[in-house]
């Protein structure tokens, strides 16, 4: 099989590129104090939150967009973005699924989001965020029985303000970085989870994000708190329609795991990646961080990043509690002109803390893929251990893979291991599969899935299947 044949194979088109025709309530483009006040007022927020947003806005004005990542993109005009867009509702808001705009539900159907009762069979509770506002949350009752709070962020602000005030910004402060600070000023919605002490959340929690309106940014904010001895697994999926212009997505996710608690956070990110010439696509500048606050806390990040034109994302763990564990499992794929600069930070503060990093980068077409990771062992982290494995797979002659592993060890008892490799799908491997009668596309998928296996096995089962399918779609025609 020659290279051109393989190229033809790779180019499958984006399947989620439809636009839903719904009246939106959108504020005019631009960002100043009045926009922040409008957002806060629309949400009926308490004063502390408005003040926090305004401090963030003030701080943001003195910041500059960071450019240390291995990314090239057109300048973002922050004045041209609309910072709030909500589907217009006929009443005060949907009280149940029956009240939700049928067009929206049809959209979710096309995405395959299990929003209806059938989702119960899958054991998934879905909090769907559509252009910044949570539309419907399922299975609240069952979760409430267990004492788990799972609701749109804006609802949590109304009903659990004390928890919000205590934890919001406690892991990612509003001064943290340019994009997180922007998010702090203008975030519109997101998800909130609180799992009480000793409770094992009875189902996987799931949020499905979708950017629909044109010229809007999406700034959601997720906060998950796992109280002592609790467990929660949270899944996040993302899609966006096809548009020629770029759209900004700057989310913040904060995780707090208290003593002996465990949070497993899985993402399958499939934002629109732009077309084959690199036009359009989502700019995904996301700050995700978790803090292991107590003894033996445990946070795992698993991400499969197949979408977005630009991905800038470093889900990290602050390992404060003694013996706490941080994990990062990542598959990042770039095809055509996609660029990803992604990785993690593991900050070891507590004694005997452990972290594991497994990163699989796949580059095809003109895609650029960078792993950027920091392992930081502070003087207090006696006996800390890290293991990092960082593998890159190149498909074709025009793509790139880059690795920027930073290690800072300030305690001599620490153990830090790093393994890295770069490889190609070899002609030998491909021909071997072909010679066994397997179609070249299936062969490529098989080989790539094999490469990602150690990450996929960390995903909840239904997500693992989706991830594998997405990977196949993303890489169609990507072999050289």
């Amino acid at each position, binding site marked *: 099989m020659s290279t051109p044949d393989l190229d033809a194979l790779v180019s499958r088109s984006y399947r989620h590129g439809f636009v839903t025709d719904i009246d939106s309530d959108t504020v005019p483009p631009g960002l100043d104090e009045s926009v922040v006040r409008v957002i806060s007022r629309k949400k009926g927020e308490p004063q502390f939150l408005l003040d926090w947003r305004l401090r963030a806005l003030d701080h943001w004005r003195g910041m500059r967009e960071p450019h240390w990542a291995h990314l090239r993109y057109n300048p973002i005009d922050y004045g041209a973005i609309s910072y709030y867009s909500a589907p217009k509702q006929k009443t005060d808001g949907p009280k149940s699924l029956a009240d939700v705009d049928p067009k929206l539900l049809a959209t979710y159907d096309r995405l395959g989001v299990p929003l209806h009762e059938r989702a119960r069979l899958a054991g998934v509770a879905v909090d769907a965020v559509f252009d910044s506002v949570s539309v419907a949350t399922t299975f609240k009752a069952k979760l409430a029985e267990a004492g788990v709070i799972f609701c749109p962020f804006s609802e949590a602000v109304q009903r659990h303000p004390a928890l919000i005030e205590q934890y919001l910004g406690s892991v990612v402060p509003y001064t943290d970085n340019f994009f997180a600070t922007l998010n702090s000023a203008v975030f519109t919605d997101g998800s909130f989870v609180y799992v009480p002490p000793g409770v094992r959340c009875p189902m996987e929690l799931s949020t499905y994000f979708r950017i629909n309106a044109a010229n809007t940014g999406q700034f959601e904010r997720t906060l998950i708190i796992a109280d002592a001895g609790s467990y929660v697994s949270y899944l996040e999926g993302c899609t966006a329609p096809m548009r020629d212009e770029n759209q900004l997505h700057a989310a913040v996710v904060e995780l707090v795991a208290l003593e002996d608690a465990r949070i497993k956070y899985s993402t399958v990110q499939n934002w629109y990646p732009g077309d084959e010439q690199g036009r359009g696509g989502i700019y995904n500048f996301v700050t995700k961080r978790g803090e292991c606050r107590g003894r033996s806390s445990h946070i795992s990040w698993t991400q499969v990043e197949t979408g977005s034109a630009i991905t800038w994302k470093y889900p990290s763990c602050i390992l404060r509690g003694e013996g706490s564990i941080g994990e990062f499992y990542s598959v990042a794929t770039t095809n055509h002109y996609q660029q990803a600069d992604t990785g993690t930070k593991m900050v070891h503060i507590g004694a005997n803390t452990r972290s594991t990093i497994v990163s699989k980068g796949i580059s095809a077409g003109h895609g650029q893929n960078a792993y950027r990771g920091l392992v930081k062992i502070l003087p207090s982290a006696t006996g800390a251990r890290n293991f990092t494995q960082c593998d890159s797979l190149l498909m074709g002659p025009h793509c790139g893979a880059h690795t920027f592993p930073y290690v800072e060890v300030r305690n001599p008892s620490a153990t830090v291991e790093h393994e890295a490799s770069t490889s190609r799908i070899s002609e030998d491997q491909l021909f071997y599969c072909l*010679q066994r009668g397997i179609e070249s596309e299936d062969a490529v998928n098989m080989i790539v899935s094999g490469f990602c296996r150690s990450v996929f096995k960390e995903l909840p089962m239904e997500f693992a299947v989706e991830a594998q399918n997405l990977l196949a779609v993303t890489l169609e025609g990507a072999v050289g």
Partner: protein
Amino acid sequence: MSATPMLEVRDLAARVGGQDVLKGISLSVAPGEVHAIMGPNGSGKSTLAYVLAGRPGYEVTAGSASFEGRDLLTLAPEERARAGLFLGFQYPVEIPGVNNAYLLKAALNAARRERGQSELDAFEFLQLVRSKTQLMHIDESFLGRGVNEGFSGGEKKRNEILQMLVLEPKLALLDETDSGLDIDALKVVANGVNSLRNPARSIVLVTHYQRLLDYIVPDFVHVLARGRIVRSGDRTLALELERRGYDWLAGQAAA
């Protein structure tokens, strides 16, 4: 001999990396026959196997090759495989993370679809494979490992024959399947190959040494030198080669 040969190669010439490696090969293999192709290193033995299997980068510059009367050279490699042509690789490649059984099941079901048979489910497949692993002295745990991942040289070769036993090809091209095997492993491999011999199936053994032919007795032996078949005969030719060395025939390649 039946009317249609399993494999009919006529004046086949091929180029690899800008070099003419095959310079006019003719070979006719009837169903049920076992042919051995011998020759010194660099004579074109593996190239012939790759060209017949359709490996990219191996450019046919002249001649023809047909498989059961079909033009082999117009078929994609996966089509050749599904039509029943199997290549046992000299150096089976590792495919990390891809389950050995998964690949084999995909291969078998691709072949079964081609033959108009129903696909096997996981249970049926496992039953089939188990009987073959025993014949090949392969531990079942092999099936759960990555394809050839961390296998020793001998294990890789036995795995190739295991695949052949499961896929039951019409024509098997075995490229130096004996290289790197100790005598016990060689017997196991030969036993596996012999178990497939039947009047409807043809086998082409590519080998450097006559040792393999003590265990898999060929009907015909061909000696390849510098891209041409310089001598054909029965199995006594292999013995004579063993005694006299390849230099004996080398001069004839230029003729």
